[in-house]
């Protein structure tokens, strides 16, 4: 296995949870809801996902447990921000704190256990092709699913009527409401989708990445996913680029250290975040004054009856 191939494989694995979580959050934000609780939903997804897989021995059941856990947690968020019209930022932060605590509680019984990680695809002949074989045909199912998910979300947002309505709700909830669209119901489904994705992304960590559960194992990946949504200026295609770029910088800085390039490691650890800042600046320079964010993002909507 060549070094380049090895690096690409590591990058794909490191980027996948970011991509899944960010895709979910992108849909949520496109509907005008800012859910800062991604980290919390991810870590609960990780705990439940591992628990499910450990108890049943099935990675698929584990993944489903992660999805359900993330969705349930996001329903709390929906209840607070949509039902009771509570501030979204505060609720999202609270959700993260709740999730971290809850995951420790759920996961307490599984700490120290391990499972067999998700299998990697193997197609005789195809997977054995030098260089590209393992990269294209040798990943675990999550990697392929994450890409299918982004394509699906892109098709949904830009090629379906419902997608158009969802974007309308995110851009101007008053108009959408006046046109007779159920703003709160659409937002609730968007929030649930975001929760499901975050839960799955969290479950990816113990199911495929490091096959054991440890409290706090998401280590801030939920926040990176949030940054990626902004980085992508709320566009699914750019999200893929952003997630892989972020993964690449993370992995390459480790390789640069191992190769003894002599660049301070503290600087290298900060590189992915620096890249985010630079891209944000560049994006704002391209179209000065025009915000790419959904216009109603983060604002509370109370329908007048």
């Amino acid at each position: 296995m060549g070094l380049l191939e090895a690096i690409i494989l590591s990058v794909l694995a490191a980027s996948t949870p970011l991509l899944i979580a960010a895709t979910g959050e992108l849909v949520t934000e496109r509907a005008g809801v800012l859910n800062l609780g991604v980290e919390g939903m991810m870590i609960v997804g990780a705990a439940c996902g591992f628990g499910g897989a450990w108890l049943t021995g099935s990675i698929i059941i584990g993944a489903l447990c992660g999805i359900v856990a993330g969705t349930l947690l996001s329903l709390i968020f929906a209840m607070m921000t949509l039902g009771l019209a509570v501030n979204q930022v505060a609720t999202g932060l609270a959700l993260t704190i709740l999730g971290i605590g809850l995951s420790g509680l759920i996961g307490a019984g599984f700490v120290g256990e391990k499972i067999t990680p998700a299998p990697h695809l193997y197609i005789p002949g195809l997977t054995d092709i030098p260089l590209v074989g393992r990269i294209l045909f040798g990943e675990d199912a999550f990697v392929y699913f994450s890409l299918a998910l982004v394509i699906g979300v892109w098709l949904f947002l830009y090629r379906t009527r419902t997608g158009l309505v969802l974007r309308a709700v995110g851009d101007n909830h008053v108009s959408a409401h006046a046109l007779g669209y159920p703003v709160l119901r659409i937002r609730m489904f968007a929030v649930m989708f975001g929760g499901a994705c975050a839960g799955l992304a969290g479950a990816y960590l113990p199911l495929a990445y490091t096959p054991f559960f440890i409290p706090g194992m998401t280590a801030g990946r939920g926040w990176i996913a949030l940054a990626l949504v902004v980085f992508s200026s709320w566009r699914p295609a750019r999200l893929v680029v952003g997630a892989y770029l972020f993964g690449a910088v993370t992995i390459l800085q480790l390789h640069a250290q191992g190769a003894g390039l002599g660049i301070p490691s503290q600087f290298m650890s900060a590189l992915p975040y620096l890249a985010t800042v630079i891209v944000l600046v560049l994006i704002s320079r391209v179209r000065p004054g025009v915000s790419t964010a959904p216009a109603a993002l983060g604002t509370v909507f109370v329908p007048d009856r």
Partner: protein
Amino acid sequence: MRKILIAATAVMLAAGASLFGASAADKLKVGFIYLGPIGDLGWTYQHDLARQAVVKEFGDKIETTFLENVSEGPDSERSIEQLARAGNKLIFTTSFGYMEPTLKVAKKYPNVHFEHATGYKRDKNMSTYSGRFYEGRYIQGIIAAKMSKAGVLGYIGSFPIPEVISGINATMLGAQTINPSIKVKIIWANSWFDPGKEADAAKALLDQGADVIMQHTDSPAAMQIASERGKLAFGQDSEMIKFGPKAQLTSIMDNWAPYYIARVKAELDGTWKSEDEWGGLKSKMVVMAPYTNMPDDVKKLAEATEAAITEAKLFPFKCPVVGQDGKEVECKGGDHLADGQVLGMNFYVKGIDDKIPGK
């Protein structure tokens, strides 16, 4: 009605307070501040095992409280102070980054005794304690050099602080006794605990040709990656063989229980005083996990080295210690480096082909 309610509340409060007061007066309250979650299977896990040992030893005579996931730096000051205010008379703060906050709180609460792990600042009511982990690292270096076919070791560092650097140096000094041209690749995770990143670092090291992985970070992720790839690795802080039954060579285990029990006993007896404890293999503060996945001759060599260090016949930092610049390091401890030189180590020994980040 309202007055009755208020009166009832007052009575209940008074009753509660007296109950609380009574229990506080009878029992010695001991507090612990942890860096990670108690389920990290590494650093914090070992500290909590020791706390449990204390509870088992003294039973009803004491009451312990712990706060987990307390981040280092100024934030931890509040947590430490909270424990002091809650009536804890002996407080263990178990990470290097709690040093300044512990010192500050110690000055504010002169009647409370503090025990700070791995630091170097002390006060009348603040002790320090740490393990001579470098002794274990030296043994690991010897095993690694024996077991590595590529002659390249992979080392995952957390932060470039003296404790970690002395560990890298001790590893190399041990390894060089077997293979003078052994190489080490070092990756800093800049985190004590991030399983994903630790796994990525282990992958990067293996991809770059290292075939034995050692780590100074706290999760079993690297062990698990080595196991998956059919390579070898050393555990960290606790027994990690479960994550690499065919991969773990040994593990340096932190055994705080004897020290914690001794200190709590001193507190109960009223003989506690500020000390500086730096225990190694001899005092069993550092314990090696069973030597596994290696041929008998390597195992024998490891055991002999362990015995020699325990009996103070062998010092990992035996003079002359030569730095990267080829110059001999001044020998302040007779025939080996003085403790202070090890505790403040900020140079790499000859043979490490890298730079300390930020230097």
